[in-house]
């Protein structure tokens, strides 16, 4: 049980903090959230600065062009960038956190050379084409078909919940290549160029009113066979390898942000006279305990991941992440419910960021595996309870 950081890690933190202090004031103003091209430019500009300063692909293996940093350094990076108010990974998310690592782990040399450097340098944006209208919790039931035709696959289907589709260069796509095979078999991983004929992107409006996501319609889109990563019909394994390439750092930055948000909420309650309500105060106090614990849980998971990596593993299994995600999703929703209690009638005002975030927080028990599915995962994979039928 050592929470103090090593001298190396502290030096890493100090260098990073100095660099952030120097670079953040030089950034251009944040773009309007509805201006996709401006957002892409902003996010890629930030990625380029990270690249130039040696922070790009921090947690990627060095063989893939990354820095091979430990999970602890990755955590420090997330903590410090969040605390300093640095830009989020934004449009670089899928490339840096999923498609890139997938290609690094499963791609051939040419594929790695083609796709990885532009991700690290902030030159190409990736999006993710996994979910479908009929395949949400049950990803293995996806229906988008890919039929081999000469040197190409011809792909037809619909993908949903795709972020940054409007400005992406590439889409990591999971398609069904063998409709006869059992559900998890017969899937294949393809890199789809978003400018291919037959690709249509339609913004998808959420209940929060935002258009963070899109639907991607694929109408006989030709994808070269050379864009396939892994073997044909082996896409499920290829994808899952990377989905569990998770080192306890998921949502780490968000927890740091939530703790700051909670302090702001307390001050808001004080300003509005709501601090006089002991029930509300105690609710805020309990949230303080909750997010204190969540931060420690992140550190615990990172420590476990670091240990596993040192011993040849790939990081925490996804199931450990499920425990964290279940608790964090609930805590985040409770944070914004408490904010609504502080605001009272003001909680109906979309001009309040609290209100918009309350709406967004509703997705946390649904997206990336509903809380129901996460409970199943924990029960069966961590606790070893017999499989449900």
């Amino acid at each position, binding site marked *: 049980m050592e929470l103090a950081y090593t001298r190396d890690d502290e030096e890493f933190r100090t260098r990073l903090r100095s660099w952030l202090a120097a670079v953040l004031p030089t950034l251009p103003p944040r773009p309007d959230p509805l201006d996709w091209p401006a957002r892409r430019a902003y996010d890629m500009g930030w990625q380029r600065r990270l690249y130039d300063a040696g922070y790009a692909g921090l947690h990627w293996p060095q063989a893939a062009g990354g820095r091979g940093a430990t999970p602890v350094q990755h955590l420090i990076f997330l903590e410090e960038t969040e605390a300093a108010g640095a830009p989020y990974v934004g449009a670089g998310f899928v490339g840096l956190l999923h498609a890139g690592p997938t290609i690094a782990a499963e791609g051939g040399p040419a594929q790695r050379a083609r796709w990885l450097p532009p991700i690290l340098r902030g030159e190409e944006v990736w999006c993710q084409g996994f979910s479908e209208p009929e395949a*949400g919790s049950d990803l293995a039931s996806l229906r988008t078909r890919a039929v081999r035709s000469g040197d190409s696959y011809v792909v037809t289907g619909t993908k949903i919940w795709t972020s940054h589709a409007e400005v992406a260069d590439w889409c990591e796509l999971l398609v069904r290549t063998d409709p006869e095979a059992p*559900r998890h078999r017969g899937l294949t991983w393809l890199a789809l160029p978003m400018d291919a004929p037959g690709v249509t992107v339609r913004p*998808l*409006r*959420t*209940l929060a009113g935002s258009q963070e996501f899109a639907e991607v319609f694929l109408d006989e889109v030709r994808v070269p066979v050379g864009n396939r990563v892994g073997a044909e019909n082996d896409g499920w394994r290829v994808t899952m390898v990377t989905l569990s390439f998770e080192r306890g750092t998921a949502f780490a930055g968000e927890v740091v942000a939530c703790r700051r948000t909670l302090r702001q909420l307390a001050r808001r309650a004080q300003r509005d006279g709501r601090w006089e309500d002991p029930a509300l105060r105690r609710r805020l106090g309990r949230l303080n305990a909750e997010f204190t614990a969540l931060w420690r849980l992140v550190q615990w998971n990172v420590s476990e991941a670091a240990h596993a990596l040192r011993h040849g593993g790939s990081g925490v299994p996804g199931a450990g992440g499920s425990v964290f995600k279940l608790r964090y999703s609930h805590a985040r929703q409770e944070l914004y419910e408490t904010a609504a209690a502080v605001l*009272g009638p003001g909680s109906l*005002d979309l001009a309040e960021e609290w209100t918009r975030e309350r709406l967004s927080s509703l997705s946390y028990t*649904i997206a990336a595996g509903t809380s129901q599915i996460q409970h*199943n995962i924990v029960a069966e994979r961590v606790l070893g309870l017999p499989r449900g039928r």
Partner: protein
Amino acid sequence: MDFRLTRDQEALRRGMRDLLAARFGREELRAAVDGADGAEGADRVAGAAGADRAAGTDRSNAGEGADRAGERSVPGGRLWRELGAAGLFALRAPERSGGVGSGLPEAVLVFEEAGRALLPGPLVATELAGSTGLVPGAAEGTVPVTALAGARAGDCALVEHLASAGAVLLLEEGRPARVLDPAAPAAVPMRSADPLTPLHRVRAPLPGPDRAPYRSADGSADGAVDGGEGAAPDGGVLLLEGALLAAAQQLGSARRTLELAVGYAREREQFGRPIGSFQAVQHLCAGMLVRSETARSVVYAAAVTADEAEIRAAKLLADTAAVDNARDCLQVYGGTGFTWEADVHLHLKRAWLRAEQWCAAAGSEERLASALLRPAGR
């Protein structure tokens, strides 16, 4: 004692459901949302570099999109006049005053249907004004009436549909109800979370008689009140009746989101079978039914007894049922429910709003706690 609905009550409810299905079905609902949304959307992109931005929308008018678009359902518009003709706003007015002469139970059934259909507009205040005769034209649905209800000094009160209202009821406990000119309250527009309910906020102290009320309901200004029966009704009484009608709407919403969830759980397949066959989903739906049935029993009872504590209990339970059922419906729908196109969010946002209106939880809980210390009747 026979708590069940009478045949007439069943018929009334059925009539209102049919009327709303014909005149404000899902298509009209979504048209109203899109209309409101167009105006609001234009506001949202103001300042953005988006190619399709609509310029020049005055932010202070943004909330009124719901009134400008979706023509049929605009308060005071065609649908409102039809609803007025059907008696929605004068159910409880005496027949001699052109009303229906029914009681609170009938009003509750009708408002439950309105909540189920997500009918927009300041329905509760207009019914109070129409049934008491406080505002001419309210009963007919031609003059929408909104309310400033139960705000205390220092409070920040919500007023809905202020821009389209012809009058504002000012309801305070222990004082006669008053009718204000909509221009009277110093109101600041909000960007309403509910796309169909434009909102303003008014900070108490509320406008007094010196601030040019539209008409004071105690008869001291122009116009006779309530068929000439003299004294205006007590603000506290109307406040409670309003809370009950709002509870009825919450109940209708809670029952509707239950229907939606059950329907979706039956149809939607994942892992090769309907999600409704998974215990986790079954239990969410069962919990929704428990909430709505429990809320229903106390809402209906409060309509019969008109007892203050029971009305407050009804509002508390109906608020919880509406909000939590909408939340659970969203969870059953999963990603589909998170889209703007699904109706779930409309129920959730309206439920959140109504929970803040017409007696919010904390005050009612305090009253209901105090009631425990009084000697119990039998």
